[in-house]
């Protein structure tokens, strides 16, 4: 087995890898859902007039953004030995990206004109209804493309889960390589699969961006 590229091997590994694509996608969407919820929580906590709450969110965001995802994953893995690795992986991804999404939400919220808050107040909306009916719907719409970009970034980071023994594309490729010594095909196909999934998604995001820009 000395040739650089073998099409048969490539086809074999391709089929092997497609079987774990669902794992990667699940980790991506669950992680992103968690990030979207937590990010909103941080963003709202940041705005709290109660200092300890806003400070807690501030340090949470800063800490998470200032440390590598890989280190965070390994830390959670060691700190939570009883949890399934998939759950730890999703938590790590969600937590990490929640810090970035918090900033995105913040931008979206701040872009809602002051007059909207005042109209809501003049009509006697409760704080909860003001957020859910007036502010958030307007804050989220323009940031949807940015959120989409983060979704793609998060997706491309899922191979890191292999470091905590989640069986996803990267670990399957590595195992395949160590059995067959055909690492080139294995890792190349991983790349191809990622490209096949993220490129159309990024086109979608760009389309959404253009639509938003037109709406302005």
């Amino acid at each position, binding site marked *: 087995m000395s040739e650089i590229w073998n099409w048969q091997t490539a086809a074999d590994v391709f089929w092997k890898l497609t079987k774990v694509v669902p794992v990667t996608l699940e980790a991506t969407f669950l992680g992103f859902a968690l990030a979207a919820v937590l990010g909103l929580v941080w963003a709202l906590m940041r705005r709290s007039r109660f200092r300890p709450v806003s400070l807690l969110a501030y340090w949470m965001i800063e800490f998470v953004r200032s440390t590598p995802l890989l280190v965070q994953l390994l830390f959670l893995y060691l700190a939570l030995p009883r949890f399934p690795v998939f759950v730890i992986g999703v938590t790590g991804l969600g937590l990490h990206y929640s810090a970035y999404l918090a900033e995105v939400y913040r931008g979206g919220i701040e872009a809602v004109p002051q007059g909207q808050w005042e*109209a809501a*107040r003049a009509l*006697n909306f409760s704080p909860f209804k003001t957020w859910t009916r007036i502010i958030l719907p307007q804050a989220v719409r323009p940031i949807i493309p940015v959120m989409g970009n983060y979704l793609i970034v998060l997706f491309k980071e899922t191979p890191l889960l292999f470091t905590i023994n989640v069986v996803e594309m990267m670990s399957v490729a590595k195992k395949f390589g160590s059995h067959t010594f055909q690492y080139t095909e294995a890792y190349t196909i991983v790349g191809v699969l990622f490209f096949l999934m993220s490129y159309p998604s990024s086109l979608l995001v760009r389309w959404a961006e253009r639509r938003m820009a037109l709406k302005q």
Partner: protein
Amino acid sequence: MALPKVLSLREHDSEDSERRTRIGQKTKDDKTQESPETTPIVRYRGVKKSFGDVEVLKGIDLDMMPGEKVAVIGPSGSGKTTLARLLMTLERPSAGIIEVEGEPLYHKRVGARLVPADERHIARMRSKIGMVFQHFNLFPHRTILQNVTEAPIHVKKMPRLEAEEKAREMLEKVGLIEHIDKYPEQLSGGQKQRVAIARALVMEPKIMLFDEPTSALDPELVGEVLAVIKEIAEKGDMAMMLITHEMQFAREVADRVLFTDGGNIVEQGTPEEIFEHPKSERLQAFLARFLGGVGGGGQ
């Protein structure tokens, strides 16, 4: 400053007796000695407002009677908007008391003392007041109909169908019934402001505040909005505070005109007194600049 004269009673002289008894009960609860006819619906007492070191309202005393239409005129920066925003609870006074229907807006009576009120009290008081903004502040993500039904449904907990019926009625009144499924961005400025008026009216406030409702509009659209406000003023028994630069409009609609300058109410009186016989030099100068500049009355 002289206490405002109790004038313009002609409006509520003809009012139904039901309202009087309501006010009568209120006064009894409040242990004030005034007769129902003289109980103001809004009362400012020594109201001051500072932003940082700048005092923009310097001790306002003002009474508005139920149903009274009060126009507020005055140069830019004189505190007109702030006056209204304090009543709408968009801004808190730095000092003084504001009362609505004899009840303090930002305070609660505990025995004889006044203590700062909680948000629940303020929310209850706020429901008596509505406001129309210079820049409309419509909800861009909701249709015209939804803009008007949003508060009845989500604040008053009114059933959707009932809210929609009332909203249609209001939108009919302001002449926009054929636009109810459009979004605000599809409307002209004048139409937007009429939606904003319907949105405030549907909550049935007892006091409506208009902060320069036409000054963000193209000149050709001013008339349609003023006509709507005028109609509401003539039909409704709401008290209205009309901040405006449309002098002709103020003259036609207002029972009383206030002239503010430098954070004070410098002069007040009937439209005739203010526009025909201004006393203070500052008002004379203001009117000369204003009416002279734009050729007499509304722009």
